[in-house]
């Protein structure tokens, strides 16, 4: 794991285009056209399942299992969507997922940034020991802790609460490590100057360090948000009340009650999958760089 984290400290490449393009695009030789065809075929293979989900969700319920293959049913209808929407649960799960993901991301970014700053810019007895504990924690997969963690949640009365879902996802040692590596590379002069001017520790942290670290904080935030939004195992274990479920958990939980109403299942999947894809469409570059930046240490 430690080895894995080294890559993250490499600054993410700025330029979109590979440098060897030298500003001009290579010509369309026969080889490149073959590559393009291969790439397009693979793209089709990756997009077809998504297209199939959308196509099915727009069919009347009676046409969904028809063979031979047809992408459009006897008519295009939004029936499935309105049925799924009216059932109401989906809306609640969306809100739960949004609340839990935003809170987890906020708390993770703030606590991890503070801790990383504390580890790089202060000194106190036991600092090395605590940092050692954090580094060692990178190797502990949360999945190993489900049994004792669940019992702890029972004892704390946090089963079926938002905090029960949020808190175990907040303290991510890998994120502290990434931020420590970043802070170590930031020159201290600005902070020193502020100290000389009489600024206190907190002001320096919030008005100098945090704004300076915006790119890496964004990377940490993006990574945390995606993994929280998509997390299944822990929210699945710690919520039993359908009203408190996150989107992925709710969907799986309700799947059996859909029976064979495939159009409705697909409609609910489309609704559930769309939010992050929209976010991706807007922040493609940031997300791609965030993943490249934090990905190797984050898993």
């Amino acid at each position, binding site marked *: *794991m*430690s*080895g894995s*984290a*080294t890559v993250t*400290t490499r600054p993410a*490449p700025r330029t*979109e285009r590979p440098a060897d*393009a030298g500003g001009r695009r290579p010509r369309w030789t026969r080889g490149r056209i073959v590559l393009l065809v291969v*790439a397009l075929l*693979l*793209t089709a293979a990756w997009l077809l*399942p*998504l297209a199939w989900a959308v196509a099915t969700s727009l069919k009347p319920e009676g046409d969904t299992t028809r*063979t*031979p*293959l047809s992408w459009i049913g006897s008519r295009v209808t939004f029936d499935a969507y309105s049925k799924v929407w009216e059932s109401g649960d989906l809306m609640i799960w969306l809100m739960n997922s949004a609340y839990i993901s935003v809170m987890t991301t906020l*708390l993770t970014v703030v*606590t*991890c940034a503070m*801790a990383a700053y*504390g*580890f790089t*810019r*202060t*000194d*106190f007895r036991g600092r090395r020991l*605590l940092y050692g*504990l954090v*580094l060692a*924690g990178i*190797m502990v*997969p949360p*999945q*190993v*802790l*489900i*049994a004792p963690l*669940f*019992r*702890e949640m*029972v*004892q704390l009365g946090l089963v079926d609460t938002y905090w029960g879902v949020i*808190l*175990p996802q907040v303290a991510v040692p890998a994120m502290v490590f990434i931020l420590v590596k970043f802070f*170590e590379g930031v020159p201290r002069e600005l902070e020193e100057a502020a100290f000389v001017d009489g600024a206190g520790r907190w002001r320096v942290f919030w008005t100098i360090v945090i704004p300076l670290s915006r790119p890496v904080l964004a990377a940490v935030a993006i990574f945390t948000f995606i993994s929280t*939004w*998509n997390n*299944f*195992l822990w929210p699945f*274990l710690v919520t039993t009340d359908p009203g408190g479920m996150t989107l*992925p958990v709710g969907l*799986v939980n309700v799947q059996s009650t859909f029976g064979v109403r495939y159009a409705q*299942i697909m409609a609910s999947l489309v609704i559930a*999958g769309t939010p*992050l*894809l929209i976010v991706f469409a807007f922040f493609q570059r940031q997300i791609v760089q965030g*993943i*490249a930046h934090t990905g*190797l240490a984050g898993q």
Partner: protein
Amino acid sequence: MTSTTAAAPAPVAKPAGRATGRPARGVRRKWTEHGLVFIAPFFLVYAMFLIWPLISGLGMSLTSENITGTGGEFVGLDNYAEAVRDPDVWSSLWNTVWFTVLSTVPLVVVGLVLALLAHQLQVVQWLWRLSWFAPFLLPSGVVCLLFLNMILPSDFGLADQMLAAVGLTPEIGWLTDERYAMLSIVATTVWWTVGFNFLLYLAALQAIPAHLYEAAELDGAGAWNRLLHITLPMLRRTTGLVVVLQILASLKIFDQVYIMTGGGPDESTRPILQYVYQQGFTGYRIGYASAVSYIFFALILTVSLVQPLLSRRRAEEAAK
């Protein structure tokens, strides 16, 4: 742990003008102040929800505790002894390892191929990223319910329909036949998560210095030679990391199996995490579940510790 951090950006040296002059005394004190205050919020959560469960789980694994936290008594290593003799532990461990073997190879190779394609083509980058990476952004529930309901069912599922369109009617129960269930889960996983490795490789490709290619081109090296002698060797480090991360991620499989087959048919796809879940959460034997968790943890630790050792040895050999 920190021996491999050489790649970190070197701490920026102080400007020459100030290198000799020490900062004023008050400022120096500032640098050491309030450390615990900054670390406390993180550490409080960390201690409560990582360190403590890690310790209490070890304790629980030595008891006959059930999920409500009552009625447990100390049983020593009995749970571990039982686990070692439990054929279900071995079969689900084997399923986990088998899934890891089957999934790691295509996830790394396909990820690399996709990245090479996108890097080489240089056009419509957004399309490659959208189609190959976007599935990674979908929750496991969405992906697995899609494949379970509309892709893999016999007859009307997209897989069978596409095969039928080219004249094949394999009549295979993709998820219900023991010979194909694990392969179907692997295929679903590749479709879903390969975009992650694709992005890591793409970033690594973009970091290869351009002058290497320019020099090779001057020497008359063709595209194939440039790939074999520059690109692939430059990706070796990344590949090592991607492989280890992929192994660690694959070992933790739970969602896909739980949602798509429930561990079946005949428990042939049940991974170790699902066995822990069944013992602890539906069988209420939380002490036993903890013991099995720790066996699983030992496996994960072995993998994550072996990798730095290997790369260190390689580095030492290279230094000789």
